[in-house]
């Protein structure tokens, strides 16, 4: 489970995330939306341990990311918005590398890597160095590597960028199935249809503040105030 308690992040005088509080329970698929520069990636980076919050507390599976970062990270998986991979490693080597970082046994890594290669259909090029990969190939490899250690929480930033329709379908289905298995999925996206299709609950952030948090039924009720479209609700809330 994810808990954000009065989390704030400032860069000098600029407040990127302003006193956010949020709880995402086990097995929930949470969609995190907002316009460019609203604070989505900053929030996600704080959860992943890449940024230190200026104030507030973040707990992942009950572990405070400030005081017990390794316990929290051990149960979490982060997929960045840009799928940067070590360009001299092959996709397979990158997955082994990630498995090692999460202290997995070699035999288990081997089994999971084979499983991921088959599931994400990356066998044709997984043994080439990633320097020659396209954006979609990188994205699929990053997501596959993130799932190697079977995390309890998946924090994923813009997963559909650069994916072809088939790959996007695989990723959507994988994330949905993980959530049904009890994994928390915290996904940031710009795609309103994807959020509507996949998420149990949606949060909208604008100028660093959470301006909407609600379930699909809350959203449906909200939509009736406008023209019945999610897009209109989103545009109104982020004006």
């Amino acid at each position, binding site marked *: 489970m994810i808990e954000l308690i009065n989390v704030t992040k400032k860069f000098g005088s600029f407040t990127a995330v302003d006193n956010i509080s949020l709880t995402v329970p086990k097995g929930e698929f949470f969609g995190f939306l907002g316009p460019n520069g609203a604070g989505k990636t900053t929030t996600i980076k704080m959860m992943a341990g890449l940024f230190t919050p200026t104030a507030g507390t973040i707990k992942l599976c009950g572990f405070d990311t400030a005081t017990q970062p390794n316990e929290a990270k051990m149960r979490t998986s982060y997929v960045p918005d840009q799928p940067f991979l070590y*360009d*001299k*490693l092959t996709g*397979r*080597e990158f997955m082994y590398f990630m498995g090692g970082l*999460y202290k997995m046994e070699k035999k288990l890594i081997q089994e999971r890597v084979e499983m991921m290669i088959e599931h994400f259909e990356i066998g044709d090029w997984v*043994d*080439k160095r990633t320097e020659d990969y396209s954006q979609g190939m990188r994205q699929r490899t990053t997501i596959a590597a993130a799932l190697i250690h079977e995390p309890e929480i998946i924090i994923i930033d813009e997963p559909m960028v650069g994916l072809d329709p088939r790959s996007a379908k695989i990723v959507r289905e994988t994330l949905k199935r993980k959530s049904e298995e009890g994994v928390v999925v915290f996904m940031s996206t710009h795609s309103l249809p994807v959020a509507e299709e996949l998420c149990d609950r949606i949060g909208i952030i604008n100028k660093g503040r959470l301006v909407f948090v609600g379930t699909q039924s809350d959203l449906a009720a909200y939509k009736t105030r406008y023209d019945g479209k999610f897009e209109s609700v989103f545009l109104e809330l982020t004006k």
Partner: protein
Amino acid sequence: MALLLHILRYKFLSFFKTTFDLRAVSLVRGIGSLIVFGGFGLVAYVASYELTLFIMEKTRIGLFLYHRFISMMLFVFFMAVNMGNIIVSYATLYRSAEVIFFFTKPVTFTQIFLLKFLDNFLYSSTTLFLVAFMVLLGYGTYFGYPWYSFLGILLCVLVPFMFLSACLAVLVLMSVMKVASQWGFRKILVLIGSVYASLVFLFFRFTNPIRLVNQVSQYYPEVDQYFSQFDPGFLSYLPNNWVADVLFFFAKGEWEMALPFAATLLAVTAGMFGLVLFVAHRFYYRSWLVTFEVQASSNSVEAGRRMKLFDFRKNSLLPPQLEAVVKKDYFQFFREPSQWIHLLLMLVLVIVFVLSIRNLNLGLRITNVQALTYLVLYAFGVFLSCSLALRFVFPAISLEGKSFWSQLSAPLDVWKLFLLKFVISLFFILTLAVLVAVASNLPFVRLTERRPLLMYFGLYSAFWVSVALVALNLGFGGYFSNFQEKNPIRLASSQGATLTFLVSLIYLVTLIVVVSAPLLKYFESLFLFLPFDFRMIVVPGTIFGMISTAIIGFSVMIGLRSLQRDF
């Protein structure tokens, strides 16, 4: 031409906007850099002046020998600039994203080549110019050069000298790229490496400094004459000798005698630049295409599937996290040509140096000469460690690049990561430092009739210097980290790297100052049969350890803090 100027204008704008940033943090950093650069300039000036004074008035080896030693140092400098340029040019001319951008625009290949070549030369040589100019200033002040001659020598002698080396480097590089597709990239590189190593070896074999000293000493005290009759014939065709002769005649006050050498250097440099442009016009684009063939042939699925040394699939005795990071670093390093080629070249140079000096016949039992020889060899050893650490340790954190998210978001303590990089780097730097220390101390152990004191000192020093330099370069490399830059050579010649190198050199000068007095006393005790108080070793040894410990502590602290910054 208008197009070239248009591009240059925006390149300068970009440079000035990033260099002269007026934010408070940048200003503080800029002032800090200015103080360190200024301090270093001053140290270089004073060291050069004092060294010239010492050589001319204490050792009294005379003008000719002094300038022949300068010529030898310039030869090594020329080769170092040349090899550095080959590797940097490969990255800037063949692997740069900017080149691909220009290829899609109406800019000719020759113009692109010229832009990248000049960019490369200016970027990698700025610090060398600063150092060279301050050394020249110190040296020239001793000989009473007129003020205007400093600028003249810098612009008409030193700059063309380095430019000639850079021109030769790109010619070699384009030739390598041209034939690489037929002969194989690795074979060509091994061949080039062997040729360079042989050149350095043969140069010192034929110039033979000891023989020259003996020949010139016969004319003592008339040792300021121009003894070119003792030079091997090939020396008059080498640019390092032209520069040394210009300096020699200026020092003698016979500047009109210096003009032919300066004119030769300028003419050869201009001719070489013309040749470079001609070759680039004919072959640059074609050789650029070769890089794709080379890359494609080295990155196939079949090659990736083959089981390799340190393969991730193999079991290991190391804990999983350690194994993952070590193997990742290994592949990232040895699959990047600019890394392993540079390492190979430096190793070849170290081996040539070790082979050349291990049987050095010191001959003369003159205290000042032997103390100076020892200090020069010692300084070279430390300087080598400084260069290796700067080139391979400083960029280590930055080279994690944007992919660093994978480690920072994993359950891995940053201090473990820092420690791991520290230990790997230390193993490599310390091994070479010990090798050089043993080789450079062997002739002195023979000279001192098997007294091992100098060898112990060499090993003690190698340990402290290696630990301090690794800590310094790793710590400062983290503080000045640039995760955007993928090119290790550009990282190692960035502003932060230059500052780190200057701090390393200040450390080197401090060490020399600390050890020079007891060293002189030790040689006096040997040759003049004077008593030697061993406490004279303990005090500088302790100071040595304390300075190194302070550097290690400070560097580790800032390095660890830098890894905890927002990514």
